[in-house]
């Protein structure tokens, strides 16, 4: 199905839009926002973009961090946990897409650090645009925790759209 989708994409000349999602509300909001504004059902099947939804699954070793005693035993549990989470994420993304009546979507789960996964996905699909949510961290949290949206905004080779959830208090 992947080759078929790619063939149709190149024939129709659709630009590819990659949406990065993870297990957070912010990224699902980003997906919904994107579907709403770019893939309206009334436009029919003539949406100018082909959607690829990419979820990054962190490697178990990165989650466990420095190996302590018994890290090897924990590994399989962490692995299955991560796999469950990423499946759930993709399921939810599928639901969101079908509720917006968008059928022409590819879903991918790639293992690795979210930053690299998204930038590589952009390269692989020759995407025109990468959409990411934003956790809305402040400056300090951003430096400490790191920001995927920041990294992608600087390093992706295509246009980047950062969708934020509007602040509740206004």
């Amino acid at each position, binding site marked *: 199905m992947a080759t078929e989708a790619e063939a149709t994409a190149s024939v129709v000349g659709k630009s590819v839009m990659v949406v990065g999602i993870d297990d957070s509300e912010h990224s699902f909001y980003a997906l919904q926002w994107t579907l709403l504004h770019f893939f309206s059902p009334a436009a029919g099947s003539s949406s100018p973009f082909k959607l690829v939804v990419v979820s990054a699954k962190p490697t178990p070793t990165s989650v466990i961090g420095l190996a302590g005693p018994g890290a090897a035993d924990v590994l399989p549990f962490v692995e299955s946990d991560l796999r469950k989470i990423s499946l759930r994420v993709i399921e939810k993304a599928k639901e969101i897409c079908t509720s917006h009546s968008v059928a022409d979507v590819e879903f991918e789960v790639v293992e690795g650090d979210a930053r690299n996964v998204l930038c590589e996905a952009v390269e692989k699909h020759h995407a025109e645009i990468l959409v990411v949510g934003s956790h809305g961290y402040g400056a300090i949290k*951003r430096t400490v925790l790191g920001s995927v949206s920041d990294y992608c905004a600087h390093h992706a080779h295509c246009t980047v759209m950062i969708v934020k959830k*509007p602040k509740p208090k206004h």
Partner: protein
Amino acid sequence: MEETKEPVATEGREKMTVLVAVDESEGSLYALSWALDNLFVAAVGGAPNKPQPLGRLVLVHAQQPLQQFIMHPIGPAVYATSSVIDSVKKAQEQNSRDVIERAKGICRRRLVEAEAVVVAGDPKETICQAAEQMQTDLLVVGSRGLSKIRRAILGSVSDYCAHHANCPVLIVKPPKTSH
């Protein structure tokens, strides 16, 4: 309030207010062209019988504050006479007009209508403020593609907007010339 949070698609595509930040740089004009091609033309060009615009396009140009040009203590007191201030102001206004004209020309060539707004002040803050005031759905900025260090020293409008704007931000990179 419910309209901005979870808009219900009543008539086809949701009408977006898109704010594009323009200045003299090639990057921002490329960003404008990219936005027009991918966000606006795609909607209209496909079926000419249903000319449904994607939404409102607003061009925003930030005019640098005047102080920058006057605060140069060269030698003994240099007085900024009123004529100097006037001529600098005029030059700035002409500059802004040129930028807006160029941007509007790009829009016109693609048969897209655009409004233009000139705001005065520090570009980073004023663009974000303008986005908030106009309740934009999407803010489009170009990017000079600066490296990390330069970004920290020179400052980056796209960086600031990405962090501080209240609405989604689209950062358009210049096309890669050498791959």
